[in-house]
């Protein structure tokens, strides 16, 4: 070390110290910022889930919890065909609703992002407006619309389009589909809007300058760039659809056994909390696995 290095060393040390202090401050800020969400998730997600997880290895005997650890609940899930049937029905409903919502949400989101101009904010508010009312109330409102003496049937009868009311509008698969699409379409529109909004008009114009037809410009520019939003919407829709209870019960008439109803029956009819907890755990594991796979797929798409 030379004499001349001395002061430089000192300033370097001071600079390093300042950098370290700044890094510590940044770390503290990060931890401080994350703390509320971590606390929230711990209290309202991790702890209840942890309790359910522990419960799932117990059993009920004479309406009391038997804390002997057993895999019996899990064995029952994979050997009882009714559970599989309920799960497959939920899967079917969730897939259908995800696809239909995707098809319907894209033009809506595209219109709001690219064509609505000064009406954009108003339209976005209209999209999220239904969320201000609970899903149960909205489902009951649909009953008033779809019932035999509901607004739709009465309107069709008054206009002479039908002689007798359509009974299939309520308590039917049709009603479930209508209810679910209505419930989840906004969940799809919002992330799609965010993605489409980021696609600059100049990029589309550039594609068209290079002789791309509007359709080709859409498929090669807009759609790939909107794809992450499409996937996020699909994940929302699918996860909510898979665990849906309210709409099949209120609009479907409770005649089909979806997995959420199976879980409720375990807790209520059988008073078998460990059994219900085990099914919930399996359902959650499935959703987490699916989410992990989707994220793994989405990330490279976003990076690209």
């Amino acid at each position, binding site marked *: 070390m030379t004499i001349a290095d001395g002061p430089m060393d000192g300033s370097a040390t001071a600079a390093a110290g300042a950098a370290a202090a700044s890094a510590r401050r940044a770390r503290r800020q990060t931890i401080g910022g994350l703390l509320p969400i971590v606390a929230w998730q711990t209290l309202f997600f991790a702890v209840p889930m942890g309790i359910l997880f522990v419960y799932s290895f117990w059993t009920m005997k*004479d*309406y*009391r919890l038997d804390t002997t650890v057993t895999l019996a609940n899990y064995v029952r899930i994979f050997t009882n065909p*009714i559970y599989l*049937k*309920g799960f497959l029905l939920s899967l079917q409903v969730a897939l259908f609703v995800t696809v239909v919502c995707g098809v319907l949400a894209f033009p809506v989101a595209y219109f709001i992002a690219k064509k609505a101009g000064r009406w954009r904010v108003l339209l976005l508010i209209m999209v999220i407006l239904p969320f201000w009312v609970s899903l149960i109330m909205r489902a009951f409102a649909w*009953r008033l619309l779809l*019932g*035999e*003496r*509901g607004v739709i049937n009465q309107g069709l009868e008054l206009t002479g389009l039908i002689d007798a009311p359509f*009974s299939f509008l*309520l*308590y039917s698969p049709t009603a479930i589909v209508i209810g679910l699409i209505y419930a989840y379409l906004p969940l799809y529109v919002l992330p799609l809007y965010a993605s489409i909004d980021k696609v600059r008009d100049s990029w589309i114009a550039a594609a068209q300058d290079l002789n791309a037809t509007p359709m080709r410009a859409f498929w090669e520019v807009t759609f790939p760039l909107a794809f992450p939003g499409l996937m996020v919407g699909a994940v929302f829709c699918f996860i909510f659809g898979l665990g849906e209870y309210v709409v099949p*019960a*209120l609009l479907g*008439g*409770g*005649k089909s*056994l979806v997995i959420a*109803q*199976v879980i409720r*029956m375990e*807790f*209520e*009819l*059988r*008073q078998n909390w460990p059994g219900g907890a085990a099914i919930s755990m399996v359902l959650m594991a499935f959703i987490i696995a699916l989410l992990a796979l989707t994220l793994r797929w989405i990330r490279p798409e976003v990076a690209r």
Partner: protein
Amino acid sequence: MRLHTRRDVLRHAGSAAMFAAIASQVDFTRPAFANDKKLTGPINVLAWTGYDDPELIKGFKELTGVDVNVKEAQSNSDQLSLIRAGTTKFDIVNPDAVWTTKFAQSGLTLPLDPADIPSLGEMFAPFRDLSDIQYDGKMYGAPTRFGMNGIVHDLDKLSAADAADANVLWDAKLKDRISIVNWAELYILMTALWQGNPKPETVVGPELEATIARLVEVKPNLRAIHDDLGSVKSDLINGDAWVVWGASSDNVARVAREAGKNVALTLPKQKGVMWMETLQIVHGTEHLASAMAYINYMTSAKALSIMAWGKEQFAVTNAGVSKYLTAEQYKLLDLDKIDEWFANSIMGKAPDDEKAWADAWEQFKAA
């Protein structure tokens, strides 16, 4: 041996003075609810809808000086879960009689001494049979309300003569026209009864399989299997359903009639099934005397007459309500039909094998 020190004497004198002060606050002219036990409160009641009637709560407060907090429960299962969870210290719970065993076996309720409930002697005859509210030879509940399960039908769509045979529910002309509630035990019990089992609560094995097969056959005729009674009533009133099977039929018919529907409740020749609601004391209550006083109050003819003519309008178990209701109210509550009902129905009982019945209901729902 020294018997008492001066300090002991002073302490006992102090206690005596405190007792005298408390005793002077007690109104001994109040009815026998208080007896020799101090009434404390407030008491927390977990009950079906109807118990929160302000007039009922006021009546108890005036009589005993004790406040009542009523939390409404949506189902028997709800009640069991909430009592078991113990987050609120309930003193009184209000399950159906068929749930008595579940509560008692779980150690959640206390046995009652029939001698402590004088109104038991005023009950309509079938409700004096304590076997429905017993577990291990001890009585756990006091009956309050009851209802009849049969066939409620829109008379413009189905005649009383047709509804007199339970098999009409399986008739193709009722396709997609029957609403029921998600009440597993009731429908298995009724179907088993209608298949000729005199003790339907005992069916298991092949008999249960036959019952479920029969229930599955009715599924094409079901408009909906609701989780709440309100939806069943709406279906009948709105014309979405022509028939309501079970679902506390007398109450459904009453509400539909009030809404202007031309409906009737018919008990088929294969018989109807009754349900009965009870009040029970929660194990560990800190207000035992008040809880007992509440049961005595709520099973009295006066309180039950208020309850019967309250917003829910369920039939009540105390025959003495005739003193407090008008003839018209008595008739509108169908209490004038009680003898006919008793002759043409059985009291619903808990299944011998609950697990098998739960499996069977799941099988029915998944079919």
